[in-house]
């Protein structure tokens, strides 16, 4: 009797150990998957601002109408398809897909979409087609991959959801630091400055000459391979928790929605009430105007910097440092919000953003000041994302 109980205890402990290892591997897989997620244009911090100038330079040599403004639309297109088409992973659509085919299949589909998109873009001869394909497909892939590793990881660590999401999202913030620099080395190995001046009204943008820009297809092919390898490594590491039932995911139609979403449906105000509330519209408009600076500068920091800092690697490095700062900001800000109210923290965030945005143009002549200001801009942008998400959850989420 005693022996049987000991045996059962040992088995339980062994299963728990096994679950912890599987959970840690799932978090690691999520970290890797989010690293791939970032080099696409959508999301928040990304490498698009770093690489868009190469894309514009490449296509400008085939069509002189193509300039930095042409490639600027890629980010919003991708954001649209991520945010509206496949949701920010906060809507039912993303949850249904995850539960219908599982995290591995969803993850594999996302990886395949990323790899094939980059591969296809390497052979697209037209700038506008490139912008469309890249924008739409990376947005779709992001919708498929964003929370796909987070949900199974939460099942393993239900009491540490904040930490788990933070670790996974850290990969998202960190990746431009690697891929931005990597892409720069692939396409501009000798660090040639952008010397081709192209006027856009009163503004004179700088593009790279063809001897640099011609490496774009090669760089895209290499990135496609890197993404494929990262997904091949990470997808098999996505596991399901063995005690799933205990964690609230049941076999019913409603299981198509995650535990959080179901809980919200039951305990939160319905959407009609939400839409009628002042808080909803203030938050929506606040996020719109508050995040505009961050979204713009992520795309334009390099274009603007190139007018004064004639060193491609330095500018890519500035973007990388700023991305790391953003990654830390995303992890740390939720912790700060444990101690300070949203109103106080966001007022400080906004005042800082007003000052940083108004003085950015003064810093661009000095690479160190510019690096500091861009890093601050990226951190303040993280404040928009985490602050509003948490405040929305606090006002409209489960009580």
């Amino acid at each position, binding site marked *: 009797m005693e022996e049987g109980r000991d045996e059962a205890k040992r088995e339980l402990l062994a299963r728990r150990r096994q679950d912890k290892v599987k959970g840690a591997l799932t978090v690691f897989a999520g970290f890797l998957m989010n690293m791939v997620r970032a080099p696409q244009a959508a999301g928040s911090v990304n490498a698009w601002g770093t690489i868009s100038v190469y894309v514009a330079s490449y296509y400008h040599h085939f069509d002189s109408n193509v300039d930095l403004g042409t490639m600027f639309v890629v980010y919003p297109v991708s954001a649209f398809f991520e945010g509206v088409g496949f949701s920010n992973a906060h809507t039912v659509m993303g949850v249904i897909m995850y539960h219908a085919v599982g995290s591995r299949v969803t993850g594999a589909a996302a990886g395949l979409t990323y790899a094939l998109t980059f591969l296809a873009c390497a052979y697209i001869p037209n700038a506008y087609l490139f912008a469309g394909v890249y924008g739409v497909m990376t947005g779709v892939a992001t919708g498929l991959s964003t929370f796909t590793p987070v949900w199974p990881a939460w099942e393993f660590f239900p009491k540490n959801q904040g930490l788990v999401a933070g670790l996974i999202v850290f990969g998202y913030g960190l990746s431009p630091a690697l891929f931005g620099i990597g892409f720069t080395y692939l396409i501009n190995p000798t660090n040639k400055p952008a010397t081709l001046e192209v006027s856009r009204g009163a503004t004179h943008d700088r593009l790279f000459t063809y001897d640099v820009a011609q490496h774009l297809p090669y760089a895209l092919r290499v990135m496609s391979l890197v993404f494929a390898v990262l997904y091949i490594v990470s997808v098999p590491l996505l596991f399901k928790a063995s005690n799933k039932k205990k964690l609230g995911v049941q076999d019913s139609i409603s299981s198509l929605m995650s535990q959080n979403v179901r809980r919200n449906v039951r305990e939160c105000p319905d959407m009609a009430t939400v839409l009628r509330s002042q808080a909803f519209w203030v938050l929506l408009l606040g996020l719109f105007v508050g995040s505009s600076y961050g979204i713009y500068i992520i795309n334009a920091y390099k274009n603007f910097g190139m007018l004064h800092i004639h060193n491609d690697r330095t500018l890519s490095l500035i973007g990388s440092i700023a991305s790391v700062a953003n990654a830390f900001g995303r992890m740390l800000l939720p912790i700060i919000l444990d101690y300070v109210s949203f109103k106080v923290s966001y007022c400080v965030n906004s005042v800082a953003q007003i000052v940083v945005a108004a003085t950015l143009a003064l810093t661009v002549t000095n690479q160190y000041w510019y690096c500091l200001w861009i890093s601050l801009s990226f951190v303040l942008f993280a404040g928009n994302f985490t602050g509003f998400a948490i405040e929305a959850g606090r006002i*409209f989420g489960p009580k």
Partner: protein
Amino acid sequence: MVPSNAYDRMGSYAFSYIGQGFTLAAGLSILLDSWVVPVWGYSVCFYVLSGCSAVALALTLVLKESW
């Protein structure tokens, strides 16, 4: 006060709509880059965005933290 595992509350339906503020901001960034930058340059664009942050500050001050 917000709990430390605040990230799990991102799953609310309300934020899936509020999050579309990012999509609107992305649209605004296109308008600025295609209209403001070519005419007045980057500096003016940054001033406009600084003004947007000031509006965000004002909105935060009038925010009622309940529905």
